[in-house]
């Protein structure tokens, strides 16, 4: 099929192409209490094809592209006819495709995913045998185990193959005491079973679920807030956004190479941010990406100074930059000095927001506290409700990071980040 697709692309007169052959298998297991709610097997097999057409016009040379999806055995010519029309209409500045390069060996598939059905059963047994504890029991769990094989072939000579896996456990614990009940939901996504640390996570969330029974609403005030490691990628997303070459090309980025990303002298910890596509079993790791760029690691922010735009091949060509690929896993370092209990007497520790998506352009954020603790005078009070709001860019100059380093699938760095003077809306 691949040879046929290439032959027909040439026959239709396209200049360049990228073809990804994708084969995916997924096993899904759904639990309610101590029983199975549903079980699913999913198989997919398709080609994703992008074709390129260059056109000369009075204003210069333009490059058009068109992407489509085709299944084995389908009539490719019908798709290519549409592609020819679509690509001829698009008038983008010219750019090249990635050429062949050596790819790093990055582990992305836990071999145990090849027996996904058995592994799902083992995870289900583990969940059901550990979920029940003092005043806590299992509401439901969803287990998704998938593996994919991707072959990339391009007109520039790339012919590469990779395998990726994904393990996802989505789980809800219920707690009850007398007439009071509450829930604690959590989600784990990893590429290696050993990185799930499922029992440890269940036990931690059992504690949270029990504490949910005695939550209070926070009060209105300006407060110090400690964010957990699984929130840091989202919290820092505006940094990824403004550090993107595409956003720079669009005239939207506020970052300049060599300039500080904070305004004024730093009051807190200075930090470094890296994009890494080569962390073993990182959720965003890739030995090559969809353009055929090899997995790489780059320093984006160095001690508070912006160093490098993350650029796909297209935007690297437009801006004359090194093609780094888009931002992958986040590494934050150096690990700071924060020890909240020892150094701050009054702060909120957020365990879970309802959702945290800062505005990528402005950095503004506001989110409901789904669960957390108010620490004051050595007393720890569970809290729920109300919201935390602020602006990530305004906060960059006064952040502090914890000493402990963690890996959460797509993030390696401090376990907590502390931000002072955020607005807490409560009772």
């Amino acid at each position, binding site marked *: 099929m691949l040879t046929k697709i290439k032959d027909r692309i040439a026959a239709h007169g396209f200049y360049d192409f990228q073809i990804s052959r994708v084969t995916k298998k997924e096993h899904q297991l759904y639990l309610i209490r101590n029983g199975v709610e549903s079980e*699913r097997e999913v198989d997919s097999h398709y080609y994703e094809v992008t074709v390129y057409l260059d056109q000369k016009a009075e204003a210069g040379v333009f490059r058009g592209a068109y992407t489509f999806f085709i299944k084995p055995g389908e009539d490719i010519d019908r798709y290519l006819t549409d592609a020819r029309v679509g690509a001829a209409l*698009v008038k983008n500045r010219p750019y090249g495709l990635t050429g062949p390069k050596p790819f790093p060996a990055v582990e992305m598939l836990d071999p145990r995913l090849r027996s996904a059905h058995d592994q799902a059963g083992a995870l289900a047994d583990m969940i059901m045998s550990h979920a029940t504890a003092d005043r806590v029991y299992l509401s439901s769990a969803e287990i998704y185990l998938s593996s994919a094989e991707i072959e990339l072939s391009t007109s520039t000579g790339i012919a590469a193959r990779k395998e990726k896996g994904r393990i996802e456990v989505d789980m809800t614990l219920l707690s009850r005491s007398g007439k009071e009940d509450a829930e604690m939901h959590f989600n784990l996504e990893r590429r290696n079973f050993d990185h799930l640390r499922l029992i440890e996570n269940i036990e931690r969330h059992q504690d949270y679920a029990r504490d949910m029974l005695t939550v209070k609403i926070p009060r209105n005030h300006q407060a110090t807030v400690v964010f957990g490691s699984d929130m840091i990628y989202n919290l820092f997303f505006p940094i990824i956004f403004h550090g993107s070459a595409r956003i720079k090309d669009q005239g939207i980025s506020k970052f300049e190479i060599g300039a500080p990303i904070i305004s004024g002298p730093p009051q807190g910890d200075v930090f470094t941010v890296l994009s890494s596509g080569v962390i073993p079993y990182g959720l965003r790791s890739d030995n090559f990406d969809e353009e055929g760029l090899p997995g790489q690691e780059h320093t984006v922010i160095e001690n508070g100074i912006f160093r490098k735009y993350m650029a796909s091949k297209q935007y690297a060509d437009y801006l004359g930059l090194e093609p780094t690929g888009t931002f992958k896993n986040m590494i934050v370092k150096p690990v700071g000095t924060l020890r909240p209990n020892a150094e701050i007497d009054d702060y909120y520790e957020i365990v879970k927001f309802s959702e945290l998506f800062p505005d990528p352009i402005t950095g503004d954020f506001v989110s409901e506290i789904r669960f957390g603790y108010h620490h004051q005078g050595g007393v720890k009070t569970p809290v729920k409700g109300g919201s935390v709001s602020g602006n990530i860019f305004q906060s960059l100059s006064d952040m502090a990071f914890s000493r402990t380093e963690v890996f959460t699938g797509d993030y390696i760095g401090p376990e907590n980040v502390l931000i002072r003077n955020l607005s807490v809306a409560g009772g």
Partner: protein
Amino acid sequence: MDKNLVGRIRELTAEAERKVPYASATYFTGGGMEIRVDRKDEKIAALKANRGLVLTVFNGEYFQEFATDDDDPDRMTRFFRAATDSVLRRPPKYEIPVGVAQEKVYQTEEQICPEAMNATEKLDLMRGRRDRILRADQVVNAMAMYAERRENKIFINRVRVVEEQVRRVTHFLIAYVTDGKTMKSNFLIAGGTGGLERIEVRDDQIDNMIETARKLLRAERITPGFYDIVAAPPVTGLIAHEAFGHGVEIDMYLKDRARSRDFLGSQIAAPIVNIVDDPTVPEAYGSYFIDDEGEPARPTYIIKDGRYIQGLSDLYSSVVMGLPKTANGRRESYERKIYSRMSNTFIQPRDLQPSAIIAAVENGVYLEQGLSGMEDPKGWGIQIIVHYGREIRNGKLTDRIFSPLGVTGYVPELLQNISMIGNDFELDGGTCGKGYKENVPVSSGGPHIRTRVRLG
């Protein structure tokens, strides 16, 4: 749909039922295209179709599903048989209703068929709207996006062969503005089920969107606290959908994850409040003719005169809970499971002019444009993120604008506090997740309402 293929699937479903108590098959096909233009780049691409077959088998205790995107008839036959053979029949715990016998094909009505305009014309339309935004003062970038989807689905069980052909179109405009120090954005969304008539946008709507983006450059953060608010229809919709709708999806009852279960039949909202989920609203983005379990679409009154009447169900939840099956069993694609999901969810309008509602508020905030929300059915808490709101003083809107705003609170309290409901009505389309995944097309809305919430 290919009649031979349908016949083959029907035979295979019948064959499966010789081994298990119930089997059905759902076959999804379709396609579509998208156009996106901004200041620098253009893109035209085919959309990845939700194209695949799901064999659903009840083994006596729970549903097992086998899904593939391979629709070659011979390979599909082998797939069906291997899947059925792998099922271990269990002593039946529940009886699965097969529904009313029906063979029917439903199709979205289009006033202006998307094919009436070729790709060049659609691209030029997007370029024109982008350029109108780019010509405005203080605009640094603009984006115009158009997408059209054909979503075909056929559901087959022993008594039903029902097919729907739904067409959805989406149009999105964004303006990025700056005063040299700050950058803000604002957006305009159009779309629905139907044809190109659903993406008609007037120039004055685009100009208003840009003007509001400029006003956002001087937006303030609100002082946290409780406020009287007037919600415009997009925010009313988020209240109906996020604050309440998710809490009455009864698959959450099975998991003991929804507080509303304890309130079935109870007065939980002000008596003036009616909340409806209705997949049959003409042209609405979340509309369909059959749900993904072959159930014919029909409205469900969730709250009637402030009383919680009925939740939204999928087949398995309704059977296990002994509650009525509503037309709300939906899946993101053939790759995903069915859950209880909303369609078009809204508060019904009453008789007040929106201007009269604003005039009745002494000090408060007019919440004009929603952004997103997240459900909390067990805690019955609310999180809604509002793009911007305007100050109300002595019954009039002032020049003060707040952005962004977080609405939080306790759902029954918010619903009990609804004191005024307008006579206007709008639905906003978008996608909705179950938690952070399982996205399906929905809409939400209603009239202007007045209530009291915590803002931050």
